[in-house]
């Protein structure tokens, strides 16, 4: 059910993307600290490492599930 929901959302976003046109000069809000999550990469890396070593699931944050016995 959850997979179908995310798939539907992804498909909707892809289709919607073709209909939406947002000029670069209109995207000032997308570069604000709360929207630019790339700056959190190093912080999230450690957190992902903790989650990978304590949960059966992985993925979605660049982790591959290997290393340090976290498989």
């Amino acid at each position: 059910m959850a997979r179908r929901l995310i798939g539907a959302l992804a498909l909707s976003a892809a289709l919607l993307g073709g209909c939406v046109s947002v000029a670069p000069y209109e995207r000032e809000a997308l570069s604000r600290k709360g929207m630019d999550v790339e700056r959190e990469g190093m912080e999230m890396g450690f957190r992902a490492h903790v989650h990978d070593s304590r949960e059966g699931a992985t993925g979605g944050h660049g982790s591959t599930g290997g290393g340090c016995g976290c498989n």
Partner: protein
Amino acid sequence: MARRGPSGYDAPVNSRLRLVALALSTAAALLVPARPASADEASGTWTGDVELRGNYYWERSTRVIAPAVSTRLQAPNGLRVNAEYLVDAITSASQAAGVLEDVRFTEIRHEGTVGLGGEIDLGDAQLDLSGSFRVSREPDYLSIGGGLNAGLALNDRATTLRLGAYVIHDEIRQRFQAGTGTRPDFMGEGTSADAFEESFNALSLTAGIEQVLSPVVYFNVTYQYNYLNGFLANAYRRVAVADVLRPENHPGVRHRQSLTGRLAGHIRRTRTSVHVIYRAYWDSWDIAAITPELRVYQQLARYTHLRLRWRHYRQRRAFFYEPAYADDTPEDAYVTADPKMSTFHSHLAGFQLLLGMGFLEDTALDAFREATLDLNFEYIWNTNRFGNGVIAQVGLRIPF
């Protein structure tokens, strides 16, 4: 974060930690510029940043202290270079028998990552290519990985398609358990005999799309597939079967898949950003998990931001996990004492305070006016044997 058997490493660890701290301080002093560079293509100088981060994780039986330093550089021609170095000092009680014992040991892990990337302008589109290489080393574990990523930006960068591939080779040894280094029987299919020298290989494939939906909203979705083949159990953990301890025995192959979506929006009037994240995960060991997450970013003052985060995780057990195995469990049956193979759930709640250093402008410390300091604290309520935990981080990022 692997659990290991007891060792007498505590004394040398203290001197190692001091050396590591000295190395990180020296590296930071060398990397942080005395004044900001006038970094642009016209001047031909490089731009970038240096990030120092202290990471801490605590739970009932494990403590992790992990200082890290990273730098990202961009050349005037657009070439990007990044490097990161991290040290894990893991202090843990032994769970080799699946039961907490009053024995503590400390283990050090070193991890280094380097990356290279750049963008190619294709006219109506931009192709971003990057590669990375990582080595992680512990006394009894070596992990080597490398990967390539490609991102194709379309529609004035409103749409980005991403593809990635990553390979891993891990080598597992057994140096702490009674010093035997001998592989017990029944440790999984495909394992070698006698000397404990196991390994596994992994391949990870990623595909994703990011789409700007409006001037204040974007959406992305990422699919990830992982294939692991080799020794996938813990080298030290033991499982009680009919009052006899036997080594963990996990299947030698695992197919893992996840689908993650994020919807992010910004409210201009209140200077608030909201991220709704959802991950669905499933694998060939019958584990299925969901992970909804909510993040709220609030600008409190000109240089101060607050982030609130809530995350829920819920999974069902692996097909071979049993709270207690029957006395007649066959010798070669898959058995595990790994709490993360069980059915459980957790909640995480926490905050981050992000402080900008803009108030240093036109002072003696003007060089640090674009730096940021972040303080993080998160608490995890966990229903399995790992128990509750705390993640705390402090980070200093200095652009130049």
